C-alpha cells in the first residue's frame, strides 16, 4: 500500500506542476493582451455607433452610455442601454442597444439609432446566432438588407404596415429566413414606439415643449 500512496502523491504533485505551469502561461497571456482586447472591443463598438450616426454631434458617444430600466418594448429579458448624441449640449439623436428576443436561434443584439424628429438613423446587428447563409444576411457585411430601415418612422409606414411583406407589411424579407427579419422589424418598430413614449426623458425635453 505505501507504494500506491507514494505513486498517488507523486502523480498529484506532477499534475499540480503541469496545472501551475499552464495557468501561469494563461495568466501571462491574459495580462499581456488585456489592454489591447479592451481597446479592440471599444473600437468595434464605437465603429458601429459611428456608422449609424457619422456626424452632427460633438460628444463621445461611447462614453454617453446609460442603462435603461427594463421595458416590455425593448425585450424584457436582457438589459437595454442608450447612447445619447449631443450637439452643443442638447440631445439630437439616441442610439438604443437592445435585444430582439424572438430571433430564430436566440436573441439578436441590435443598435437602433433614432433622430430627434423620430425617424431611424440606422440599424445594425451587433451579435446574433442566426443560420449562416440565411438569417445572417442581417449583417451589413453580408447584405444591405438592414438599410431598409433608414429614414423610416412610426408614420412611414403606419404601424400596421410595420411587418415583413409575408405578413402583409411593407418590409422585404430574406430568402429562406422568415423568423429573423420578422424579429428585427418588430424590434425596430417597438424601439420607435418606446422612443416616442419616452421622448421627454430621452431627449431631455421639458414637459411644456
Amino acid at each position, binding site marked *: 500500500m505505501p507504494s500506491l500512496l507514494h505513486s498517488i502523491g507523486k502523480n498529484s504533485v*506532477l499534475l499540480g506542476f*503541469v496545472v501551475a505551469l499552464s495557468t501561469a502561461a494563461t495568466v501571462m*497571456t491574459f495580462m499581456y*493582451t488585456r489592454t*489591447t482586447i479592451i481597446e479592440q472591443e471599444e473600437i468595434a463598438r464605437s465603429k458601429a455607433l459611428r456608422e449609424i450616426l457619422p456626424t452632427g454631434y460633438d460628444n463621445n458617444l461611447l462614453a454617453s452610455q446609460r442603462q435603461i430600466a427594463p421595458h416590455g418594448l425593448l425585450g424584457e429579458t436582457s438589459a437595454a442601454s442608450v447612447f445619447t448624441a449631443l450637439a452643443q449640449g442638447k440631445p439630437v439623436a439616441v442610439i438604443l442597444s437592445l435585444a430582439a428576443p424572438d430571433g430564430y436561434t436566440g436573441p439578436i443584439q441590435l443598435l437602433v439609432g433614432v433622430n430627434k424628429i423620430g425617424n431611424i438613423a440606422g440599424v445594425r446587428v451587433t451579435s446574433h446566432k442566426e443560420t449562416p*447563409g*440565411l438569417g445572417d444576411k442581417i449583417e451589413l457585411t453580408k447584405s444591405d438588407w438592414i438599410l431598409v430601415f433608414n429614414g423610416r418612422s412610426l408614420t412611414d409606414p403606419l404601424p400596421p404596415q410595420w411587418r415583413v411583406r409575408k405578413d402583409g407589411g411593407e418590409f422585404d424579407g430574406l430568402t429562406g429566413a422568415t423568423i429573423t427579419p420578422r424579429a428585427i422589424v418588430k424590434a425596430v418598430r417597438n424601439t420607435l414606439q418606446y422612443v416616442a413614449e419616452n421622448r421627454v426623458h430621452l431627449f431631455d425635453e421639458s414637459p411644456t415643449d
Partner: protein
Amino acid sequence: MNPPPISYRELTHNGLWKNNPALVQLLGLCPLLGVSNSVVNALGLGLATIVVLVCSNTIISLLRHQIPTTIRLPAYIIVIASLTTCVELLMRAYTYELYQILGIFIPIIVTNCAILGRADSFASRNSVIPSFWDGLVMGAGFLWVLVLLGAMREMFGSGTLFAQMSLIFGEVVNDWHLRILPTDIVTLAIILPPGAFICAGLLIALKNEIDYRIALHKQSTAPIHSGHKRVRVTGHI
C-alpha cells in the same frame, strides 16, 4: 533499444496525405464541419489549430520523461486547453473581427481529437524536433483539407470565393473577393451542415480514388517476379 530513425519525409507524407488527420484519421470533425463554410473561416481556424498543435506537440515532447503514463491524458488536456485559451486571447487582441466570427469554434480546438491524438501517439514518444515537425505537418494536413472544403462550400453555397479575406490579411486583400456564381443558382444546402458532410465525403472519396489509381499504376509498372507459386492445400479456405 533505439527506435528506428525518424524520416522527416515520411512524417510529412503522413501528415499531408497518407495519414491525413481530416481525410484518413477523421479526427477533428467538429471544427472541420463547423467552420468550413467559407475560405476565410477555414483559414482562420486552420491557422489557430496549427499553432495549438505545434505548441502542444513541442511542450508534451519536452515533458515526456516527466509525465507518467497514468496521468498523461489529464496533463495533455490541461496543456492543450491553456494553449487554446492563449491563442483565443491573442486572436481577440490582434484579429478581433475574425475572433467575432470564429468565436465559439476557438474553444472547440481543445476537443479536436487530432491534437490529443498526436500528443499521445507521437509527441509523448519522440524527441522535440520530430514532434514539432509532426505537429506542423499534421496541422498543415488539417488546414489544407479545411480550406479546400471551405472553398468548395463557399463557391457552391454563397457563389463567392475569398470573401472577407481582409479579416485575416488586412485591407490590402479587399479585391481578392471573387464572385464565382450568381446568387440565384447557389445551393443553400451546401452552406448548412448537410453540405459539410456531403463535401467532406466527396473529398474522402476523391482521396481514396487517387490512392487507388496510384496503387494501380505502381502495380502495372512493377516488375513481375517469376518463381514458384505456392498453393495452399491444407487448412481452411
